[in-house]
């Protein structure tokens, strides 16, 4: 399926190139930025290349970086990483029927995933039907995760390892937006295949929703026949910012097989809140997200697997220098900082009544340069403290990364 997909993209590129006789002026980019745009719009709000008046849009982005990390004085040295190359292919079959897809190659070809491939049918702005492989819209990062949009090379820990980021599933649902003069309201609601028991039986030795990403069977069938519900409501004031509330929940375990009951149904619930704004005076962008997870665990399970988790991040991005440089008329430098915290196991030990830890805290100052808005060159420095679930002295990590990310 993946090969066919790539062939379609290559064929499209080649055929359009032939028709266009490699005249790049026939391609046009369609970036959109206005105060009504929200995280929900990120799927389509990308700089696609479009040939003339054809309904086909092609695009993508790539990210690569160096990585030099040290944990408690021990380093594995310098590495070069091709984090991901993502290809977009979308098209309009009709003014009310659209198709959009996103295929991602991570770490070279170590992982190849169709992250998004859905057909949208518009009844009106406030009521659209979507079916296919969708990214469950829990939190904001899941909706709006393209690398070139961020000043940080690493994705947030809470988004990637806690929620998890870009967790996509087969399913269907509805979404829409409603506009007033100052306010924009958006919602999404999907029923999809969902999680499985690997979230509490994995090599991370902790409750890990992201462990379920390894189960590729979820694109073929549900692990237990019970759909996962994911819903999000977001509201945006054009001058203040956007606030989103999202929920994802369902039964994660295989509780029956061939009509026989194997175990009680066990549920997981995830709540997330996200916010973003741009301070008018200073043009400072603030993006924040926090999530809470509740998982019903078997009582006899290993203590390392927590039933409650929470975590999130705050990004502050400040443009500091906007001048034409070496031919880039809108070149802008940014100084940014990300604060992150994740508590993988909220609770107390039965044996000692002491607090359980398994916590990660990270601070990541960053410098970045955008010669153009869709390309970013980033220098990140991370300091991270990670405590095991007992609360022993933390592992101290430091990472320096330099890289670039760009739409193409």
């Amino acid at each position, binding site marked *: 399926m993946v090969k066919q997909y790539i062939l379609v993209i290559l064929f499209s590129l080649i055929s359009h190139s032939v028709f266009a006789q490699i005249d790049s002026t026939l391609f046009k980019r369609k970036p959109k930025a206005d105060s009504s745009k929200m995280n929900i719009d990120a799927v389509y709000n990308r700089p696609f290349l479009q040939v003339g008046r054809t309904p086909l849009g092609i695009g993508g982005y790539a990210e690569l970086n160096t990585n030099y990390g040290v944990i408690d004085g021990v380093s594995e040295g310098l590495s070069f990483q091709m984090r991901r190359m993502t290809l977009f292919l979308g098209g309009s079959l009709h003014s009310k029927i659209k198709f959009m897809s996103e295929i991602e190659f991570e770490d070279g070809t170590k992982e190849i995933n169709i992250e998004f491939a859905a057909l949208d049918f518009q009844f009106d702005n406030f009521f659209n039907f979507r079916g296919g492989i969708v990214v469950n819209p829990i939190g904001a990062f899941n909706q709006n995760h393209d690398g070139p949009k961020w000043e940080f090379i690493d994705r947030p820990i809470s988004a990637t390892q806690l929620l998890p980021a870009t967790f996509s599933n087969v399913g269907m649902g509805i979404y829409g937006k409603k506009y007033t003069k100052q306010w924009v309201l958006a919602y999404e609601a999907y029923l999809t295949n969902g999680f499985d028991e*690997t979230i509490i*039986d994995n090599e991370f030795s902790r409750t890990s929703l992201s462990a379920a990403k390894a189960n590729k069977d979820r694109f073929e069938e549900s692990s237990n026949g019970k759909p996962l519900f994911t819903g999000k409501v977001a509201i945006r004031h054009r001058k203040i910012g956007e606030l989103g509330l999202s929920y994802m929940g369902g039964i994660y375990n295989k509780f029956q097989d061939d009509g026989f009951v194997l*175990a009680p149904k066990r549920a997981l619930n995830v709540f997330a809140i996200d916010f973003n704004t741009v301070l008018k005076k200073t043009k400072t962008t603030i993006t924040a997200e926090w999530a809470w997870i509740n998982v019903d665990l078997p009582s006899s399970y290993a203590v390392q697997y927590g039933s409650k988790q929470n975590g999130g991040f705050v990004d502050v991005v400040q443009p500091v220098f906007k001048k034409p440089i070496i031919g880039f008329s809108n070149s802008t430098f940014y100084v940014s900082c990300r604060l992150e915290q994740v508590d993988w196991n909220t609770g107390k030990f039965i044996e*000692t009544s002491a607090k359980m830890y398994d916590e990660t805290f990270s601070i990541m100052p960053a410098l970045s340069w955008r010669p153009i808005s869709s390309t970013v060159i980033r220098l990140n420095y991370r300091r991270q403290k990670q405590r095991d679930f007992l*609360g*022993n002295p933390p592992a101290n990590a*430091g990472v*320096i990364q*330099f890289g670039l990310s760009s739409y193409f």
Partner: protein
Amino acid sequence: MNTRDKMNILFRALLISAIGFLSASCEKILPSSPEENEVLDGTIDALSTAETAKFLRGDGAFTRVFTSSTGLGPLFVSNSCISCHAGDGKGHPSTSLVRFGQINEMGNQFMNQGGPQLQHRAIVGFMPETIPSGATHSTFIAPANTGLGFLEAVSDADILALSDPEDKNNDGISGVPNWIELADFVKPKSNSISKNGKYIGRFGRKAGAYNLLNQTVNAYNQDMGIVSSFSAKDTFSGENQEPEVSDNEIMDLVLYLQTLKAPLQRNVANQDIKDGKVLFVKSQCSSCHIPQMTTGSSSIAGLNNKTFAAYTDLLMHDMGKALDDNYTEGTAKTYEWRTTPLWGLGLSKDSQGGKVHLLHDGRAKSIDEAITLHGGEAVNSREKYSALSTNEKQLLIKFLESL
């Protein structure tokens, strides 16, 4: 030169400066290693290249997390070695284990009911074990792993030389080996001493394991439910199964345990610590917690004929009624416990969540409490400790915390 040219030059200068600064300061802004004597992990000296490679593989085996798809359980206590021995140190009460079913040298009477170890956790779809009715039991906190290769390399003759079953020197301390039957996969060393077909155990709270292979294979099987060619019987079904861990992985882990360094004493030159050691000896703590032992011959150069300071005699001692859980292993009495090595004691809290949990089941919340809970053969020593002034007690404890 116009403004644009100036900007371009400034930009290039800043870029070059940033790269230069980062190259020069890279190591300074990244976290440094803790002092060697502040951590338990690390290797003994003089490992060969091949041994180092095996050590690293063993380290990987030690941190490997098992899941139901890689063989965990179905009944288990924990899912990895490191979950019970964080940082290679002592365990925490939340990861302790329970053994049951043996009250004398006649052996475990509950082997057909899940003995000797309780697997109180289970993978999804299975019910964990409970202690059978009528079985006595004892809770064990996981011991530290460091320096085990030195303890393994001590000769049986040296251990026997320290024992005094009849208390011929009238110091109130006897000390006897725990004579145990060897599992089929355990081959005695060439210089081993046997008695009625039994050999000297030296690992575990009751010295119920002969060597580190014995200890490791039992831990895979009893702690994690992982069967191997050495021990193929599944703890749930009781049936022999195909190995879930390779012999090579087990042998890598055994070498890892053999070659973890001995904990290093801190502040050796400090006068308080020197005075504390004098009080330690004067209180006769050192009669069982012997300050120095010597290894015999070993194929691993770093363990061959080395003197080390583990503060143990590897013998079983009567510790009194308060510590008698009415459970035992081998030929040991239920009130007898192997002298716990004291090295690494000062770093125990760093693997136990910031607070110490001492004695076999972690009941002592401080070194002082652990000492005062000593009974049996240790009564005289405990009374001598109790008779010390507050300042002297602090010196003695300071010495113990330096280990």
